[in-house]
C-alpha cells in the first residue's frame, strides 16, 4: 500500500511546515466564514421570502458578495494543501476525477443562479437551483477531503475503476464521514448567518422595524447548533484518538457559549451581547478550522511526516507575499472606509 504514496515532492517545501499549516488554517477560516454565509444564506433567504421579504431581499443582494469572497478565500487552503500533501490530494481527486471536475461547471451555474436570484429574476427557481448545486459541491468537497485522508481505501477503489491501469474517474466516494463533515459545516453555517444578522441589526439596520426583524432571527443559531451537535456527536467518536482534548473542548465550548449568547440576545438584544455572540461564532469557526487541520495532519502522519521534508527557504517570495498582503489590506481598508462613508451619507 505504501508503495502508492510518493514520499514528498522532490523540490521540498518552500517554507517550514508550521508556517504552511498556519496559512492553510488562516485561509480555511476565511473561506468558512463566507462559504457559511452563502450556504445557509440561500436557504434562509428562500424561507423568509414571504414572512420577512425585506430581510430576504437584503440577503439575496448580499449573496453574490459572499460567493465572490468565499470562492476567492477557498483558493488559499487548497494551495497550501497541495504544497503540504500533493501525494495524497492528487490521487484522491483523480480517483473520482469526473466528480471533482464537475465542481467547476456546477459552481459556475450556481454562481449565475445566485446572481439571477439577486437581480430578482426567477428568484425561487434560481435560488433552489443554487442551493441544490451548492449542497452537491459541498458533498464533493467533503468526499475529496475524506478520501485524501484515507489512503488505505485507494487500492480497492483503484482496482475497481481502471482501464489498463488508468482510472476512469467515475467513482464517487461516499461514507458516513462524508455526510457528517458536510453536516458539521452546515450546522456552523446557520450559526454564522445568525451572527451576520446580529451585525446587520446592530450596525446597518435601515429602520427600527428592520432592526427588530433581524434581531428575531437569533434562534437560527439553535438550528445550527442542533445540526452541529448531532453530527459532531457521531463524528467525534471517529476522531477521538487523533484530536487533542483541548480542541475538542474549545470547539464544543464555543458552540455552547454561542447558544447561550444567542438565547440571551434573542430575549434581551444589545450590542454587547451581539458582539459576544459574534466572537463566540468566530471561535467556533477558528477552532473547527484548527481541529480539522489537526485531524488531517494526525491521520496522514501514519503515511508521511511532512516535518521530515527538506525546506527550500523561499523567504524572498514569502516577503513579496507579505508585502502584497499588507498593501492589499491598506487598499481594502481605504475602499471599505470609502464605501462606509458614502453609504452612510446616502442613508442619512
Amino acid at each position, binding site marked *: 500500500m505504501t*508503495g502508492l504514496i510518493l514520499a514528498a515532492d522532490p523540490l521540498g517545501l518552500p517554507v517550514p511546515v508550521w508556517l504552511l499549516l498556519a496559512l492553510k488554517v488562516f485561509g480555511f477560516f476565511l473561506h468558512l466564514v463566507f462559504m457559511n454565509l452563502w450556504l445557509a444564506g440561500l436557504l434562509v433567504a428562500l424561507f423568509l421570502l414571504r414572512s420577512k421579504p425585506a430581510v430576504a431581499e437584503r440577503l439575496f443582494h448580499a449573496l453574490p458578495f459572499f460567493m465572490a469572497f468565499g470562492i476567492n478565500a477557498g483558493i488559499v487552503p487548497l494551495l497550501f494543501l497541495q504544497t503540504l500533501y*500533493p501525494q495524497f490530494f492528487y490521487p484522491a481527486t483523480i480517483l473520482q476525477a469526473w466528480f471533482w471536475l464537475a465542481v467547476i461547471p456546477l459552481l459556475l451555474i450556481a454562481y449565475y443562479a445566485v446572481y439571477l436570484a439577486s437581480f430578482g429574476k426567477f428568484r425561487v427557481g434560481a435560488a433552489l437551483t443554487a442551493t441544490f448545486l451548492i449542497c452537491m459541491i459541498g458533498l464533493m468537497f467533503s468526499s475529496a477531503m475524506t478520501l485524501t485522508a484515507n489512503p488505505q481505501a485507494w487500492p480497492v477503489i483503484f482496482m475497481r475503476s481502471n482501464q*489498463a491501469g488508468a482510472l476512469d474517474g467515475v467513482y464517487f466516494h461516499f461514507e458516513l464521514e462524508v455526510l457528517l463533515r458536510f453536516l458539521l459545516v452546515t450546522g456552523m453555517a446557520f450559526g454564522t448567518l445568525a451572527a451576520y444578522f446580529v451585525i446587520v441589526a446592530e450596525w446597518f439596520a435601515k429602520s427600527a422595524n428592520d432592526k427588530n426583524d433581524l434581531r428575531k432571527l437569533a434562534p437560527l443559531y439553535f438550528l445550527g447548533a442542533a445540526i452541529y451537535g448531532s453530527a459532531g456527536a457521531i463524528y467525534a467518536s471517529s476522531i477521538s484518538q487523533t484530536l487533542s482534548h483541548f480542541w475538542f473542548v474549545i470547539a464544543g465550548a464555543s458552540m455552547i457559549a454561542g447558544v447561550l449568547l444567542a438565547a440571551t440576545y434573542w430575549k434581551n438584544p444589545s450590542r454587547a451581547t451581539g458582539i459576544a455572540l459574534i466572537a463566540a461564532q468566530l471561535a467556533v469557526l477558528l477552532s473547527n478550522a484548527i481541529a480539522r487541520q489537526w485531524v488531517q495532519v494526525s491521520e496522514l502522519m501514519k503515511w508521511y511526516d511532512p516535518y521530515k521534508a527538506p525546506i527550500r527557504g523561499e523567504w524572498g517570495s514569502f516577503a*513579496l507575499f507579505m508585502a502584497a498582503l499588507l498593501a492589499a489590506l491598506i487598499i481594502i481598508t481605504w475602499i471599505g472606509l470609502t464605501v462606509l462613508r458614502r453609504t452612510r451619507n446616502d442613508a442619512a
Partner: protein
Amino acid sequence: MEFPVWYVPFITAPMLIPLIAVPHVIVAQFAVGAGILLADLVRRAHRDHRVELLDYLHNLTRFFVLITVVFGAVTGVGIWWTIGLTSPETTSALIHIFLFGWATEWVAFLVEIVAAFAFYYLWDRLTPREHVIMGWIYAGAAWISLVLITGITSFMLTSGDWTPQRNFFVAFFNPSFLPQTLLRTGGSIVIAALGIVFHASFRSDRSDLKNVVVRAVSQWAMAGMALIALGCLWYFVTAPDHARLNMIRAPILMTMTALNFAVTLLVITALAWGVVSGARWITPPSALMLVLAGALATTTGEFIREGARKPFRVENYLIAPGVLVNQIPLIQKEGFIEHSRWLKFYLQSAATATSAPDKAARVKAGAGIFQYHCSSCHALIGYNGMKPIVYPWTPELIRDAVRNLHRTNPAMPPWLGTVAERDLLADYLVQLNDEAHKP
C-alpha cells in the same frame, strides 16, 4: 510517473485543460484590458461631465462584473482543478516553485474583486475622484495578476538559469517573461477594446456616444497592437530551439501561426479604421466578427505556446509524461514500470507478469505502459489517435518508431523504459493494428 493516470476517451485528459483554459484566458484578458479602458473612459466622462457616457459605462460595467468576477474567477480556479487532475507532477512542481507567487496573485485577485464591486455598486455615490481611483485600483490589481501568472506560464517554456537549487525569482524572471508580459498586456487591451466595441455596437447611432467610445478604445487598441508586435518578435527570439523547431515543423502549429497572423492583421486593420472613422462601420455583426477574430487570435496563441513547449512540461526539468529530466537515465536503466507506482501496483495486482511469454499478458502490460507513457498526448481514437497513426504501419515500423520515439518527432519524449518494456508497448501497438485491420 508518481501519480495515477486519468483515462479520458477521445480527447485525452490534458486536452480538458484548453476546454477551460481558452475561455478563461479570453475572459481574463478581457478583464485586465477592460479594467484599464473602463478606468480611462470613466475618467474622460467625469472630466467632460458626460452623463450619458457615464450611464452607458455603468451598464457596460455590469456586464463586465458578471463576466469577469463570476466566469473569470470560476474558470480560473477551473484551470487549476484540471491541471491537478491531468498533470499532477507539473502542478505540484509549479506550486512548490511558485507558491508565494500564487499566493500573491490571490491577494491581487482579492483587491480586484473589492475594487470591482465598489466601482460598480457605488457608481452614483462615489465622488468622481474616488470613482476613477477605484477604477485604476481594479486595473492595477488585474494587471499584477496577469504579470504573476505570466511569470509562471513563461517559466514552463523557458526555465532559463533556474535549477532546483535556485529560488523563485530566478524562475519568475525567466527569458520569455518580459516578451510574454508585453504580448499578454497588448492582447488584453485589444480583446477588451473588441468586447467594448461589440457592446457599443448595440447603441443607436443618434448620439455621438458610440463614436466617442469606439474612437477611444480603438486608440488604446492600437497601442495594444504595438505591444503585441514587439512582444511577438521578442518572444520568438527568446523561444528555445526545440520550441522554434516545433513551430516550424508541426503542421498544426504552422496552421495556428498563420491563422494567428491573419486574424491579428484583420483586427489591426479594423481598429485602425475605427481610429480614423469612428463608429460608422460598427454594427453588431461586424463587431461580433471582430470579437471572434480576437478570440481566435488568443486561442491560436495559447495553442502555439502550449504546443511549442513539447515534450517538456517545464523546460529542462519535467518532461511528458511527467518524468523528471534528471531521472531519465535511471528510469531507462531500472524500468518505467518500476518508477510508475500506480502502474506497478496495477500490474502486480492483476498478476500480469511483464516478462511472461504469454502474448495476452504482454499485450495487457503494454496497454498499461501505453496509458502511463503515451496517453497524456495520444487517445486511442480521437486526439492524436494511436489507432489511425499506426494503421498504415508494419509491425517492424511500429517497433522501430517506439525505439526511436524522440527521433520520429521532436515533440515526443525519448523512450523512458527498458528494452523489454519497449517490446511490451510495441506488442500492444501491433495488437491495436491487427484489430484495426480485421474485417
